Every structure is written in structure tokens, then in C-alpha cells.
């Protein structure tokens, strides 16, 4: 555990070593997120309310997904790279250390750009999420659950590369969950909607958490927690089993 904490401290120190670069990269991502917010405001300004979603609620959704995405892609940046590292044989350095490989891998790298997502998400919640103590507590809890789920999903899809020998599936999974999570799930119908609750659990990283903040329901919260744990476990299990098939690329990296 001490080793993992030291790894996390080291990763954060590395990301913060160049303050100017860190600030500018975070600012760029925040601007990127602002454009999305502008799009949604323009969209709902034009179309009004759609299936229970309006500008206020979509901004809440945006606050959740950017915060959760920022944690996964910023603080646990290697979650997205598991597939390519497995295929390229870049895990040698991890395997030689006396720490849990997946935990070390996830904590080893911080992506400064995506820290801007966290800053944006928190700011957006404060400005547009009508924060109260209760809502803020729910926001923190659902963002933690969404980040856990997203990390588990990315590790799961990335780890499939151990078995199929290609990392494109992981990339597609990454794009799919982020893209689909950016839209309210009620827009979809039929099979697509079922998929968003199962195969690509995008509904659980944005729409469900946003709904919980607006109207908390213990049943839905329990389902969100259970699905998050299930995907985290599935990601860990797939990575662990897949690691047995890992072939070194004789590439010594810092992972």
C-alpha cells in the first residue's frame, strides 16, 4: 500500500512539475468542455424540453461525466492505455515491482489535460447544479461510482487485447462510453437503450447519476453502486487472467 501511495505522489509531482504547462493544458480541456456546454445550451434553447431533459439537467449530466472522466482519464490515465501496452509488450517494468500490477499501472501516470475536466465539472456543478449540502454529497458519491465504473470498463475492454492481440477494441470502448455518456439516455430507445445499460454502460456514468442528484432514489443508487463494483471486478479479473498470456516486447518503459 505504501508503494502505491508513493507511486501516486510521484505521478502527481511529475504532472505538476511544470506548472505553466499544467495550467495551460487544463485550461484547454476546460475550454473544450465549455464548448460542449455551449452546444447543449444552444440546442435546448432551440428545442425546449426533450423527454424530461432540459438545459439545467443536461448541464448536471455534463458536470458528472466530466468529473468522473477527469478522474479516470486524468488521475488514472493508464486505464485508457492498457490495451496498447499489452499488445506492444510494455508491461515488463510493472511486472518486476513488488506491487499489485493493475493498481500500480493505474496510478503510475497522471494526464494533466484531463485534470481540466475535473476542474470544469466541479465548477459547473457549483454554478449550475444548485448545490446544497445534500446534493453536493450525492454528487461526490455518484461521481466516485461513475469513475469506478468507467475505469473498470476501460480496463476490461483494454484487457481484451491480451486475448485477441489487437488494441482497437479498447479504443472503441473508450470512445463509445465517453461519447454515449455525453447524451441523455432517454433519447435512445429499444435495443440501443438496453445496450447503454449493459454492454456499454454509458447510462450509469452520466444519466443515472444526474437523475440521482435531482431526485435521489435508494434503489437506483444501490443499482449504480452494484454495477460499478461489478465492472471494477470484471476489469480486474480480465486483466489478471489476461496477464498470463502477456508476451514481453523487450521494451523497457516506465509504464
Amino acid at each position, binding site marked *: 500500500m505504501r508503494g502505491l501511495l508513493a507511486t501516486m505522489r510521484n505521478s502527481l509531482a511529475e504532472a505538476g512539475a511544470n506548472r505553466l504547462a499544467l495550467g*495551460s*493544458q487544463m485550461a*484547454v*480541456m476546460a*475550454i*473544450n468542455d465549455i*464548448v460542449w456546454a*455551449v*452546444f447543449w445550451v*444552444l*440546442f435546448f*434553447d*432551440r*428545442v*425546449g*424540453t*426533450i*423527454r424530461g431533459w432540459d438545459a439545467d439537467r443536461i448541464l448536471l449530466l455534463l458536470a458528472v461525466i466530466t468529473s468522473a472522466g477527469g478522474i479516470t482519464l486524468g488521475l488514472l490515465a493508464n486505464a485508457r492505455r492498457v490495451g496498447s501496452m499489452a499488445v506492444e509488450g510494455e508491461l515488463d517494468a510493472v511486472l518486476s515491482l513488488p506491487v499489485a500490477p493493475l493498481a500500480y499501472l493505474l496510478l503510475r501516470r497522471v494526464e494533466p*489535460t484531463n485534470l481540466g475536466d475535473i476542474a470544469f465539472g466541479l465548477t459547473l456543478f457549483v454554478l449550475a447544479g444548485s448545490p446544497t449540502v445534500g446534493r453536493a454529497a450525492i454528487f461526490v458519491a455518484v461521481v466516485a461510482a461513475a469513475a469506478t465504473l468507467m475505469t473498470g470498463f476501460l480496463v476490461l475492454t483494454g484487457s481484451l487485447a491480451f486475448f485477441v492481440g*489487437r488494441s*482497437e477494441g479498447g*479504443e*472503441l470502448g473508450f*470512445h*463509445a462510453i465517453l*461519447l*454515449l455518456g455525453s*447524451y441523455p439516455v432517454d*433519447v*435512445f430507445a429499444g435495443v*440501443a437503450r438496453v445496450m447503454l445499460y449493459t454492454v456499454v454502460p454509458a447510462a450509469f456514468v452520466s444519466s443515472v447519476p444526474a437523475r440521482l442528484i435531482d431526485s435521489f432514489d435508494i434503489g437506483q443508487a444501490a443499482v449504480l453502486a452494484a454495477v460499478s463494483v461489478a465492472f471494477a471486478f470484471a476489469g480486474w479479473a480480465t486483466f489478471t487472467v489476461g496477464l498470463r498470456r502477456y508476451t514481453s516486447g523487450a521494451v523497457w518503459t516506465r509504464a
Partner: protein
Amino acid sequence: MRRRWPTVIARTSVERVLAERGGLLVALGFYIVVVAVLAGLWRVAAAANGGSIAGYTAVALTWYIATSEASTVALNIRLIDDIGNDIGSGAVAVELLRPAPVLGVRVAAELGHALPRLAACGVAGAAVATISGGAPPRPAALLLAAPSLVLAVACNIVAQHAFAASAFWLRNAGSAWFLYQKLVFVLGGMLIPLEALPDWLGSVAAVLPFRSMSYAPARLASGHIEPLLLLEQVGWLAVLLLAASVAFSAGERRLQVVGG
């Protein structure tokens, strides 16, 4: 017969893309998902607003999104960043040794890279739009949309080179690609038809080149037979080519002074 270098370079890029089918399939899968989602959103919105928004029916919006997304997914999303890195690291100096202009070679290579993806997205987009939305509102308009798509991609590639040339002075293009991309998303009409923007923002978009990179082919494919859009694209392509040429010429002189 001796082939000209732009053709050779573009053809080499095309062959490279076709050889790397995994990348092409991922791009295609991503494109289909994006079109299905975004077009679905707009159809739901149209249905909730009496069947149309800003003059676009649900079917027209589906074809609009399928086309606007194709014009951007076909490109290397981080092109500005890649060019900036090559300039900043000095790697571009090697390209100065070739008996052909750096800008010309790079644009030809990128066009060759984009065209197979554009063709794949075009076919897939037509299929997705037909299945999910319906037949094209005016099939004849697609005859104008096809060349417009190629012009849109060309305008975008050249504009990205003009933007990335800033790296000759700044040493890298940093995250400019992120900002550029967002300009195309909103002011270029990729996410939202320009007619659906507030008037003041629509007026701003009307005088900028970004609309030639996404809105023009999408407007045509959505059933609006407006050939002037093609002329507008040609005009912007000429302006952007001039801007990129001037920027690269000045930058290359500076790079020689620095020493690459």
C-alpha cells in the same frame, strides 16, 4: 509515363490506409456510433418540435449529421498537433531536402490519408441515414454533396496546416488542435446546423471559413440544392492555400535560421 509527385504521394497514403484495415475499421465504427447517436438526438428534437427544426425535417437532419460527421471523422483528428511536433522537433527540416514543397507534400499525403476514410464513411453514412432516417430528401442534391465533401476535407486539411505553421514561431502547436476542432464543431456546423444557431452567432459563422469544412456538404446532402456553396468552398480553399503557403514559406526561412 512519369507520374507527378502529388499523385504518387497521395496514392502511397491511400495504399497505407487500406493496408492498415484495423485503424480504418475503428474510425468507421466510431463514425457509425456518432452518427446514430447525434442524428437520433436531432430526430427526437424534431419530433418534439412539430416535425422540423430551423427548416430541417427529421430526415434532412439525419442526412445533415451523417454528412457533417463524415467530413471530420475522415481526418486525422490531431493533425495540427502532429504537424506542430514535427516543426518543433526540427524533423520537418529533412523534408526541406526534397525537390518538392513541404506544404504540398504534406497536404497531398493527408488528402490520400483522408479519401479512403471519407469514401468508407460516405457509404456507411448513407446506409445508416437511410435505415435510421429514411431516403435522402432530394437524391439529386447528393450529386453536389459528393464533390462538396472532398472540398470540405481539402479546406480542413489546408486550414490545419495554416494553423499549425504557428509552431515555426512558437516551437509547437500545443493544444491548438483542440480549439480548432471546436470551432469546426460549432461555427463549422458539424454538431448543429448553422440555421439553428442564434442570429448573432450565425452571422459570425457566415463570414468564417469553418462552414466550408462541414456545413456546406451537409446542407447539400440534407436536400438543399445550392450550388453556390461549392463556389464558396473553392474560394475558401484558395484563400486558405494562400495563407498556408505564406505561413510555411516564412516559417521555413525561420527554421533555416534556427538550424532545424
